[in-house]
């Protein structure tokens, strides 16, 4: 069966949704992700502007306003649910990692 889009989130997808807990426009999203990850994860403009309309179509984010030609987005309840699912997935991975008791 073909892999569904957004079945699992890449780090870039995850952080874009994460920082949209408050309304932000594109440039703010890029800066905030870079800030909270201390530069470990950067969002390229091309990646961001490809993902935003797709997230909107999936219902994960909403376009709430346009100010000075800048579109401002915010996470929807469905987007929060998606992040919650992602949290469960990551926790499961951690549990499995601990159960194997690798020295990492």
């Amino acid at each position, binding site marked *: 069966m073909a892999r569904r889009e957004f079945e699992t989130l890449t780090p*870039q*997808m995850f952080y874009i949704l994460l920082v949209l807990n408050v309304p932000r426009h594109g440039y703010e999203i890029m800066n905030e992700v870079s800030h909270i990850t201390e530069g470990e994860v950067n969002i390229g403009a091309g990646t961001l502007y490809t993902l935003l309309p797709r997230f909107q179509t999936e219902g994960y984010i909403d376009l709430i306003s346009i100010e000075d030609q800048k579109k401002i987005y915010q996470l929807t309840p469905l987007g929060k649910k998606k992040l919650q699912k992602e949290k469960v997935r990551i926790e499961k991975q951690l549990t499995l990692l601990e159960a194997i008791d690798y020295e990492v």
Partner: protein
Amino acid sequence: MKYKYIYAKDKLLIEDDCIVFLEKMSKQGWKLKRIFLSVFIFERCNEPLKYQLDYNDYDQEYIDIIEELGYEYICLYNNIKFYCHKDLNAIDLQTDPTIHELLILKKYSFSSIMGNFGMLLIFLIFLQTVLDYSPFGKQPADFYLYFNNEVLAICLYFLIALLFLQTIKNIDIRYKNQT
């Protein structure tokens, strides 16, 4: 020498190869000015540059952000925008490989390749119609009567050849970029 001309050969097929080539040229003091019929045209530059290719065609906000990030638009070739940046450590335009691959596959989608074949077919039918009225096998004096058809036929041959080569190239790019 003010400009340098280099035939692209297969440098335009794989994005990473193209970027490596352009960055190597900038280290040698040549900055891309534009691309015309698969020929890179370079002009003199004093510093190494970072290059990025962009397949997106979004709104003004997107273009503003790219400029705000310090990227300089160079040219458009085959619906791909070429950008350069003076900072070699500037953030790439595409930072998510999954999305990047998706964009390339979308640009060279099966339906767009089939669209090319469709246009090729229309040109061939049109060419056949034109040739029906061409002066082949007629008296030399008839040449003037059919001159316009001859010119049209030559133009169509040229267009068909270009379209055919472009289609083959697009198929090549699509399958070489598939992981």
